[in-house]
């Protein structure tokens, strides 16, 4: 490792280290504008100029010594940029000389000559590197006459979300490099030259990227501002609260910036294991629902047919008394539906209420999900090993991304997998029924026929066995039922699987070899495969088999990651909001009814007498029949709530503490940032209040097997969400020790401000990613990791063949769009233009046969529904399939895999 001396301090750093990074190691700050540790250095701004010398060598190549016997230094004639110069052994750097100070002063002065200096009205003021470095290194006075200033456009909408001030721009290209290098959406660039050099957007629609907001953070001046936050507060008036994004299952760490009891802005908080220093634009901008005027503010009770405001006591007493009464007759007549957006604390107590107080296993979180096997068991047993970092998989890792579309569903995971592939050389195999954005990072991109997912996987397994590439030691010692499995597999030759799934046999064999021979193998499996109709069980078992026969489990970078659709789907499974799954991913003895069974069919009598619906909206999916007694707990008067007998106003994630467990099984803590809206209460509190009322006074006998000693009201006394988590941490083995204190480790407020933290501390900049690799949250260990002697059983599941009679009807593939027509998105005006108009995507061959042109209006019929959409004809979907994004205008609750007919209108 080269040793360098910086301002007389010696430090050894790895080969390839830049001077600017080496200096940080010895506490020497070198000011920068264009340099950013996450981006390739460009040496544009020239702020980081330093004196650099190398050991003087004589003709013989020997290092010469000076009069004191120390190595003589050959100083380079010009100052060098510390951000582009790689250290070499014996290099000497000086940053504390007059020459360097002059250079810094010169650069700051130059930058300020054309800077508008409108700090008093600039969003960046207070956390602006230009301000800070001017104070630290700049001249006290300007020698540049104000009337000579270069003027440029000050309000350039750079897309829907970002405003550009061309006068403030210092041409550092951080935004361009972020888009090119990190987001890989090449939508920004420079135009013109010289003093007129300016940022432009190259895309139509402008700034067409799901990550645009990150450029605001890394812009070292106020040139890029959020069209949402712009001019609405000074940054020092905004208080930051550590939180976790509540939108998708990535669980990006965020800071909620609060002022006047509203969210002013959301910025990323560093977590090297989850989101580094980024978020997607949904996480950043879609927060207005928290203070939407139509938030529920009081409990509502139906009186004379109308929902009328009521007190909490009135509403809770009513719920408790009706539940009590129905339960008296039949506890199993009460069902609970809880959305997988709720926190772990809420889901845990919801489940506890049903199992321990009501005595019903009729519980589910899969409202609107069309399948029953969500890979929960596999994740419990073979979940990716603790320490897996999706953004740092290297060439020793092969990752099969299967039936997923992270760009739309887990955007930051798309960024991170891209980084793994492009920066660290991970071997991605991307397989789906269509081409997704992730495919471009894959060494192999495979498109199978929708409905034939299981065949594709069986083909892989078979190819491994055919070539004797299985891990025989592992199978011999740890795997049961191998021979029977192999026998069942007998008829499934690679050729046959290939024919059915439409992936060439050579490609299956090639992928199989890579999987079997890679030192590490990870599967990320997404909604499109999870929801494979008819075959969801076969898919889950085949995925497990793929891991088992190759022995790729129980270690970091091996095993299964289920890419779930919602922010806390993992928590909902962990805490047993399932008819057959208990808390801590155990099995319940007596299976209850699933959401589908509870909700029944439109023409059926509802199977439940009472339903408790928390944080979900089953009525929005249609065909909802109101049971005798309906309780809805939500932020909004949802479609279901409109039908309810009692409506209980819940607090949003921004008003309360809680934890979510992300798609990688990482439990993360979020903190209250806002005052509660009206009388809204945290879900966990409401559940506990209902429970207390149910058990108080009467200690009657409850039928059912789950009931233990929890009928005492004292067992429902929780002062805080943290107390609920204490109980979880003490009783649920997966979450052992995951108290708030433990989850808060490394959760930092990086920017202390007046009134917060220590005011004498310098405010640091947002998103500089000082490469500290701060990581917080805790991941629970899968069985394969925690039990070194566990035995695993190979379970065969016969796949059913995809229906391919003729090419019509076609198979419906349901995609999701990051911005959709959901309630949360609809409350944020600024992103509405980013919500796509509904469309159906058809393969060009099918379109030709059906006489459908690009842009034509078509009628799509399936499952007794008919919708009209504009057709998109392109190469993303394979023949025999059509793709419709869910939950856009008129496309709610689409069934994956349905048979559809398409005709021209």
């Amino acid at each position, binding site marked *: 490792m080269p040793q360098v001396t910086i301002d007389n301090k010696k430090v050894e750093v790895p080969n390839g280290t830049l001077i600017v990074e080496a200096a940080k190691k010895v506490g020497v700050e070198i000011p920068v504008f264009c340099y950013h540790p996450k981006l390739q250095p460009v*040496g544009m701004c*020239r702020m980081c100029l330093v004196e650099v010398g190398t050991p003087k060598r004589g003709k013989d190549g020997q290092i010469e010594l000076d009069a004191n016997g120390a190595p003589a230094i050959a100083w380079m004639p010009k100052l060098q940029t510390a951000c582009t110069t790689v250290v070499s052994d014996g290099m000497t750097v000086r940053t504390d000389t007059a020459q360097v100070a002059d250079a810094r002063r010169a650069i700051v002065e130059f930058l300020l*000559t054309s800077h508008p200096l409108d700090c008093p009205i600039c969003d960046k003021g207070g956390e602006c590197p230009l301000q800070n470095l001017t104070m630290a290194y700049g001249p006290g006075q300007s020698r540049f006459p104000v009337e000579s200033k270069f003027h440029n456009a000050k309000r350039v909408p750079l897309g829907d979300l970002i405003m550009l001030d061309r006068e403030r721009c210092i041409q550092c290209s951080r935004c361009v490099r972020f888009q090119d290098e990190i987001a890989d959406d090449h939508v920004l660039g420079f135009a013109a*030259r*010289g003093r*007129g*050099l300016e940022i432009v957007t190259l895309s139509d629609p402008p700034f067409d990227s799901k990550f645009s907001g990150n450029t605001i953070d890394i812009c070292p001046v106020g040139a890029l501002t959020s069209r949402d936050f712009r001019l609405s507060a000074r940054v020092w008036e905004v208080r930051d609260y550590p939180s976790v994004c509540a939108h998708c299952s990535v669980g990006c760490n965020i800071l909620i910036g609060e002022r006047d009891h509203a969210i002013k802005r959301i910025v990323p908080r560093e977590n090297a294991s989850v989101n580094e220093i980024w978020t997607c634009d949904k996480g950043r901008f879609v927060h207005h629902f928290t203070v939407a005027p139509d938030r529920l503010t009081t409990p509502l009770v139906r009186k004379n047919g109308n929902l009328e405001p009521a007190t909490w006591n009135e509403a809770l007493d009513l719920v408790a008394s009706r539940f009590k009464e129905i339960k008296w007759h039949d506890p199993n007549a009460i069902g609970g539906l809880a959305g997988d957006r709720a926190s772990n604390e809420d889901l845990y107590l919801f489940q506890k209420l049903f199992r321990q107080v009501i005595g019903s296993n009729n519980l589910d979180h899969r409202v609107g999900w069309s399948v029953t096997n969500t890979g929960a068991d596999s994740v419990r047993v073979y979940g990716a090993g603790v320490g897996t970092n999706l953004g740092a998989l290297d060439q020793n890792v092969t990752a099969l991304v299967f039936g997923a579309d992270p760009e739309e569903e887990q955007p930051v995971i798309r960024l991170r997998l891209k980084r793994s592939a492009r920066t660290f050389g991970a071997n991605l195999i991307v397989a789906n029924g269509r081409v997704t954005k992730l495919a471009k990072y894959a060494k192999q991109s495979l498109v199978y026929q929708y409905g034939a997912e299981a065949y594709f996987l069986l083909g892989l397994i078979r190819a491994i066995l055919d070539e004797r590439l299985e891990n025989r030691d592992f199978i011999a010692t740890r795997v049961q039922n191998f021979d029977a499995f192999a026998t069942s597999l007998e008829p499934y030759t690679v050729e046959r699987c290939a024919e059915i799934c439409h992936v060439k046999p050579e490609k299956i064999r090639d992928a199989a070899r890579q999987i079997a021979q890679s030192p590490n193998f990870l599967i990320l499996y997404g909604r499109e495969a999870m929801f494979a109709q008819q075959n969801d069980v076969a898919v889950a078992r085949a995925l497990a088999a793929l891991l088992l026969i190759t022995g790729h489990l129980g270690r970091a970078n091996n095993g299964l990651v289920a890419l779930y659709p919602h922010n806390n789907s993992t928590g909902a499974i962990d805490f047993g909001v399932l008819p057959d799954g208990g808390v801590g991913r155990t099995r319940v003895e007596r299976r209850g009814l699933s959401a589908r069974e509870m909700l029944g069919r439109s023409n059926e009598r509802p199977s439940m007498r009472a339903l408790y619906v928390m944080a979900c909206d089953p009525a929005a999916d249609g065909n909802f029949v109101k049971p005798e007694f309906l309780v809805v707990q939500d932020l909004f008067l949802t479609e279901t709530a409109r039908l309810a007998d009692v409506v209980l106003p819940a607090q949003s994630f921004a008003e309360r503490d809680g934890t979510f467990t992300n798609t990688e099984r990482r439990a993360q803590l979020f903190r209250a940032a806002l005052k509660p809206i009206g009388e809204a209460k945290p879900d966990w509190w409401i559940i506990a209040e209902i429970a207390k009322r149910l058990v108080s006074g009467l200690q009657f006998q409850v039928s059912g097997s789950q009931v233990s000693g929890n009928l005492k009201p004292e067992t429902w006394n929780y002062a805080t969400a943290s107390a609920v988590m204490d109980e979880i941490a003490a009783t649920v083995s997966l979450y052992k020790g995951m108290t708030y204190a433990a989850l808060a480790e490394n959760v930092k407020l990086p920017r202390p401000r007046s009134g917060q933290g220590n005011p004498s501390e310098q405010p640091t900049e947002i998103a500089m990613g000082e490469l500290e690799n701060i990581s917080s949250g805790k991941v629970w260990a899968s069985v394969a990791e925690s039990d070194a002697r566990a035995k695993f059983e190979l379970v065969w599941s016969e796949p059913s063949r995809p229906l391919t009679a003729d090419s019509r009807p076609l198979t419906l593939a349901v995609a999701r769009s990051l911005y959709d027509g959901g309630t949360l998105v609809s409350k944020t005006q600024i992103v509405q233009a980013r919500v796509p108009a509904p469309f159906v995507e058809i393969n060009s061959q099918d379109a030709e046969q059906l006489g459908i042109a690009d842009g034509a209006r078509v009628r799509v019929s399936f499952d007794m529904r008919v919708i009209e959409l504009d057709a998109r004809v392109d190469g993303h979907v394979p023949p025999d399939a059509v793709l419709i994004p869910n939950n856009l205008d008129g496309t709610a609750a689409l069934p994956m895999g349905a048979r559809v007919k398409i005709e021209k209108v």
Partner: protein
Amino acid sequence: MEHLILRDLDISDIDRIEVYEKHGGYSAFRKAVKEMAPDQVTDAVKVSGLRGRGGAGFPAGVKWSFLPKGVFPRYLVANADESEPGTFKDRQIMERNPHQFIEGMAIASYAIQCHHAFIYIRGEFPHAAQCLERAIAQAEARGYLGEKILGTDYALRITVHRGAGAYICGEETALLESMEGKLGQPRVKPPFPAVVGLYNKPTVINNVETLANVPLIIERGADWYAKIGTAKSTGPKIFCLSGHVNRPGNYEAPFGSISLRDLIFDLGGGIRGGKKLKAILPAGASSFVINPAANEAVLDAKLDFESLTPFGSALGSASVIVMDDATCMVWMAKKTSHFFEHESCGKCTPCREGTYWMARLLDRIDSGAGTLADIDLLANVANQILGKTLCPLGDFSTAPVTSSVKAFREEYERHVKERGCWARK
């Protein structure tokens, strides 16, 4: 004396390939591919002492030998951007003696084992581009370019790429960016193009005139060539003479064989309209201006890469702009400053902001609104740019400014005192 580069002056139709061949054309290339190993060619060019004619004077053979071993493909790019004000030598070569240049490219390509070479030509040279395209077609028809050249396994294509009008695209890394379809802005060096060049591959970039010298070396021998010129600046050189002289134009002479006085008064026929010589920009707009009145000896220094250094100037690409005594030096500095302000690519702070600032200051002084403090400020701003920029353009922009303030300070002061320009009163 026989011209070695501007041979069109001796043989007017040498742009025709038959004529060029008749006068020995392509025999050097034939000799190289048939009789010499690539490294021998490079060695010969090293021995010849040939230095780059694009301005910096870097030894060509040494540059060729920097390519990392075993990394292919490699590219040769001829720099035909010729945008320095007062430079027009490459244009004459390309329009009137194109085959010598093409042959030089072919030999250089062979030496570095490049199979696809490019000519990046200034967009304002459409005629020269056509001449080159015609010459390339002729060379292809004769089997000098294409597959299996002259019966060997060597293959070479040459593509002409037209620029879009930016001076900075003559800087070799901006040129590469431009060729790759990007905004013409220089890259940070290192890595140097020899290691990471066009499309991230090892690339040699040479000036047109540099390459036009190569056939001579192979044909007549490196030792013969090395005897032309001086020990450190070998070979013939084209001097572009322009400005207030009677006979502006390209003049070829061996390095170290003529002085500025010879060039201006003898070859150039002296100052136009009987006026007096006032100042010389020996390297176009990027020059340190020479004030002969301050030190007459400068006029007698025999010109080579180093001979003007003692006089605080440099030869660069030898674009000698001559100014008579009716020319205002503040106006001159204003002109060059506007040129650099316009041509700065804007990538780095000191040049982007500094050229803009200098131009504003010179506007002010020139218009008569300046103060004496502005003169010092101007020099100070220029020095603040110097040595801090990403590419040499920023430094270039300061040369005429600092040198004119130094050599003609009283003229600046006169603008302040007389509130305007004496020359335009």
